């Protein structure tokens, strides 16, 4: 069961969410700016950004938002001295295996710096943050992939997916596959 096929209220969510965001963005301009890479002084250069998206698409078998990717790449540039080198090294491992998905090459990434970095990239996309700590950088909230794995069933808190008193539904069994995203 996916939202597209089974959630007639999906549209409702989008419109309400759009409305809230437009109201909020004006008032929270400074916060929004902190999440906006184009305003950043230390942005990763365009080449590194596209290499980073290439790596991310190898590590994660889902559609990824490049704006979120740019924010992660920017943080990685500051956090990992050998950022560009690690990108190249992991991409080379995947290419050597002709990898179409992460399962094809992940085990070949050597333990240590490279594996830690690969895990961090996955962590960043799934949690939307640079760490699990209070001072973590936030790359995204509602586009964090953790929410996509359950988007057919569970609300992303503050983005309702149903209407007034319309959330009665059967309990979705675990046999229902993860939505495509």
């Amino acid at each position: 069961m996916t939202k597209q096929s089974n959630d007639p209220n999906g549209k409702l969510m989008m419109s309400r969410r759009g409305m809230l965001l437009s109201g909020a963005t004006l008032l929270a301009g400074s916060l929004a700016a902190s999440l906006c890479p184009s305003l950043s002084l230390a942005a990763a250069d365009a080449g590194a950004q596209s290499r980073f998206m290439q790596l991310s698409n190898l590590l994660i078998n889902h559609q990824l938002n490049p704006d979120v990717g740019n924010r992660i790449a920017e943080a990685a540039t500051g956090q990992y001295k050998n950022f560009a080198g690690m990108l190249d090294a992991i991409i080379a491992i995947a290419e050597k295996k002709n990898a179409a998905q992460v399962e094809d090459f992940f085990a070949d990434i050597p333990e240590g710096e490279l594996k830690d970095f690969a895990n961090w990239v996955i962590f960043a996309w799934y949690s939307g943050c640079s760490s699990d700590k209070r001072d973590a950088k936030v790359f995204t909230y509602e586009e964090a992939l953790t929410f996509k794995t359950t988007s057919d069933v569970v609300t992303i808190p503050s983005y309702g997916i149903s209407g007034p008193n319309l959330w009665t539904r059967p309990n979705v069994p675990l046999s229902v596959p993860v939505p495509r995203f």
Partner: protein
Amino acid sequence: MVTKNSADVVIVGTGVVGVVIAEQLLDAGHSVLMVEAGPRVSRAEVVENWRNAPLGVKGDTSVAYPPRPWAPHPTGAEKGDDAYLQFTGPDAYDQTFIRYAGGSTWHWAGTSWRLTPEDMRINSLYGVGRDWAFDYDTLEPYYVRTEHKLGICGPSDRTKQWPQTGDRSAPYPMPDLPFSPGEVRFTEVVKTLGYNNIPVSQARNSGMPYDGRPACCANNNCVPVCPVAAKYDAETALHRLEKKGATILVDAVVYKVETNAQNKIEAVSYYDQHKESHRITGKLFVLACNGLENPKLLLMSKDDRNPNGVANSSDQVGRNMMDHPARSFTVTTKDPYWSGIGPVVNSGIMETSQGAFRSEHAGAYFRYNNFARNRFVTFAALKKGLVGKALDEEIRRMTACTADIVAAHEILADPNNRLTLSDKKDWLGLPKPSIHYDVGDYVRKCWEVYSQPIGKKIAEAMGATDVKISPKFNNSKHIMGGTIMGKDAGNSVVDVDCRAHDHENLFIPGGGAMAAGACGNSTITMVALAIKAGDAMVEQMRGA
């Protein structure tokens, strides 16, 4: 006439207790000046603060409300000497509340259980704690008015209402909210053990707009903020109060309650955010700063006539601090429950709070937390080192198949659980509150012989493959007892109308007045007391 430094009625604090009283007095034609320590912010700003907070701190209910330097409130970020609340004693009175215009209902869950007639007579019936100064029938009409004022929905089926004893004189203004699939399953499971998981009466618009606010549409974000104000919070009342003529001063921290030669309250003084002092006079004064800030302010206000603090000839100000000490069971189940559809708390087992055992130990209320689980499980799933399909499936499984069951306990009024003024100072140079707290044997025994065994039975019946029990009692953020009510001025702070025994024009309504708090979330009772106090004030103004 209301000016910025005088009014008929001066109310300190714009939380739910302050705003319901303000409206009563305004409707009766009196001028009202409200003095609020914190800032006034828009809902959109709070929602954005929360969305922009890291996933790992989204559980910190104050993260969307950064305190202003002059109006500190507890946050998860500060510990030890740096923290606003200072603790002594075996247990930490680790509350959170919000010092913003609108107060702590910004981030409450809206759960609204009435007390039972028995809860108000625990000393007569069970020989423990304190009886209330009046009975349930006296409080009942004020509960009805609270339910209608805040928009509290609840079931019309009498067998599903709480309390089961005591009469209801009017129906809820809205029907109960539907259960999520997890709540349906939980209800069925506990039924096999003989427990009834009933719909929570909650301050949330059910299926319809109410009070100019929209219907709840399952954003699952009631704590820390409802993005659409379908859940009542006191901020939603502020504009209406202003239209009715109230003046609301913000960023104004009251630090002194001043008495005159007749030992009536003459004025309150506040610091603005530039540390400049201002003085406000009035006829009647209401302290509505919550159950923790009220006793602090009274103790800070001591003078020659009132050497222990204002309203404190009984020495009970700051004593009897209560809450609902809570333990949680985080269960992993074989079959999915899928928390996170609908509001964050939507049902509860209340009958376990009642019984003759209360002469021996506390009762407990059990609830199934309906928070979306992603933020609780994502880091643990990621730490497993999985990738690709296996990672997606593990996050999904853990989101669906983990749940939190919470047991909230009844604590007794104990004068040794006491708030005093710390020698540590806040940004304005005012003393931080220091609280000595011990949940006590009454609670600990309940946990040993009653609530823990029940919780484990429930977990087992849910098909738990793993149960993690919180290692200590957590706080429920229901601040009660510090300005306790009673008929005897020698051992209580306020009378049956929340009027200070010591000062005829000072009212201290809310949680501080509660003599016993049972197990259920108590804001509904705080507000019922506020409305009762409001009636008394209107009456008193007639004679003024």
